[in-house]
């Protein structure tokens, strides 16, 4: 048993000695780290999308702890997540309306005039050649630069047209910068009805190149009544996102070019376009 005893004593003493050393070192070289950063980081979704304006979730967490950012800046967090973080940090969370991306064009391959483009399959490169070779100077090129930029897979390219899935979109705005035609806007998630056209040209010129362009016939304006749901902007109608219309407006207005659509139904592929 003496060997066992020697082992126990020597190892025990060694352990104790090392423990003391660790303690001393920990005390001498202590680094002040705000543990809240770690805590906040754990509460964040970890998407690293950059939608908050920081270089990633950890950076954002640092920003929040340093009070240079607020939890509601995270586009991915649900309101519950935001509240959790706010509670953790002991601040009051602001309610922020969730935003989703809207691609303001529904000129897909069937409904638009386009010439034969041959080159890099990327919108930002394609726009350098004959401005993208689409009949409409303002329309979606459909090469999916926005879909590439989306970290959440919320944009789908269907028939050479970018379609946003509002349920997957978290509003990080990465796609907005990616679109060379500046087609994508961030609209409140509560607004489901959008005018899917961004061409300021005259109606006739638009019709020549695209069957689904908004020709500013104002049927929707009339159908929406007196309440300013729809705004007239030159040869284009826009949704008033301050006061968005109800989903029924699409049915009621019977848009002749189907440029007025519901985002949710658009994502589900419910619209066929105009067949004349």
């Amino acid at each position, binding site marked *: 048993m003496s060997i066992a005893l020697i082992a126990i004593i020597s190892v025990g003493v060694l*352990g104790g000695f*090392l*423990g003391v050393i*660790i*303690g001393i070192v*920990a005390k001498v070289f202590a680094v002040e780290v705000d543990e809240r950063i770690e805590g906040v980081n754990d509460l964040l979704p*970890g*998407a*690293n*999308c950059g939608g908050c304006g920081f270089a*990633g979730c950890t950076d954002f967490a640092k920003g929040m702890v340093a009070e240079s950012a607020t939890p509601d800046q995270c586009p991915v967090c649900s309101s519950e997540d935001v509240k959790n973080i706010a509670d953790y940090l002991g601040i009051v969370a602001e309610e922020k309306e969730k935003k989703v991306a809207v691609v303001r064009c529904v000129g897909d391959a069937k409904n638009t005039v386009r010439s034969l483009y041959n080159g890099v399959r990327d919108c930002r490169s394609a726009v350098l050649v004959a401005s993208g070779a689409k009949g409409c100077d303002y329309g979606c090129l459909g090469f999916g630069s926005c*879909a*590439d930029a989306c*970290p*959440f*897979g919320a944009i*789908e390219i269907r028939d050479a047209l970018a379609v946003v899935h509002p349920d997957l979109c978290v509003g990080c705005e990465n796609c907005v910068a990616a679109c060379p035609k500046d087609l994508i806007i961030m609209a409140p998630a509560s607004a489901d009805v959008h005018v899917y056209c961004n061409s300021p040209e005259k109606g006739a010129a638009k019709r020549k190149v695209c069957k689904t362009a908004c020709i500013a016939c104002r049927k929707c304006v009339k159908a929406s009544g007196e309440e300013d749901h729809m705004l007239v902007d030159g040869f284009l109608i826009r949704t008033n996102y301050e006061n968005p219309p109800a989903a029924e407006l699409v049915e009621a207005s019977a848009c002749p070019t189907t440029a007025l659509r519901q985002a949710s139904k658009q994502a589900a592929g419910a619209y066929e376009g105009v067949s004349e």
Partner: protein
Amino acid sequence: MSATKEFTKGLWKDNSVLVLLLGMCPTLAVTSSATNGLGMGVATMCVLMGSNIVVSFIRSIVPKKIRIPVYIVIIATFVTIVDLLMQAYAPTALYDALGIFIPLIVVNCIVLGRAEAFASKNGVGKSILDGLGMGLGFTFALVALGGTREFLASGSLFEVKLIPGWTTDFMLMTSAPGAFIILGLFLAGMNALNIRKAKRERTSYKPAGLDCNSCNICDMTEK
């Protein structure tokens, strides 16, 4: 998380070898045959469960500053116990094959990783399940790797020749490059399966432990 989930996560979703890429040293070194893989897997599983139990027991009284040394001591103790027990009671051939790798379980990051990431935060029951699941997942991965390599090398499995006419061994598979190649193919297959599943469910697949800047697997899911 339910108890079943604690158990099953280690088998596939968070498989320590095929998903988390932990414990590469034993994975690559001992999987030249299915038998070796099984032995190493079971030995690691024993250590993992033992350390998980003890760490989980003492988790509330361990001072934070010395938790890592404490875990190391516990793990090292268990490894030595396993080593001695194997030397005494396991078949000689198995001990000969695994002998030099058993002490290496001490620095197998799966064991320390589970102690730090799971057992130190959860109760004993859950920790046992976690250790068992992770250990089984590890064993499964090692046996699969070892079996594949053994079969590709000589057409045998658990040292039983399945294809009698196979006379010339393909030594690339039993050597270290073969280990890397087969592991790589396993990982690719694993990702392919997960991506296909994610596509079917229209979600994006994000491998554990990878951040969005380092790979584009999610993009692949969506196209």
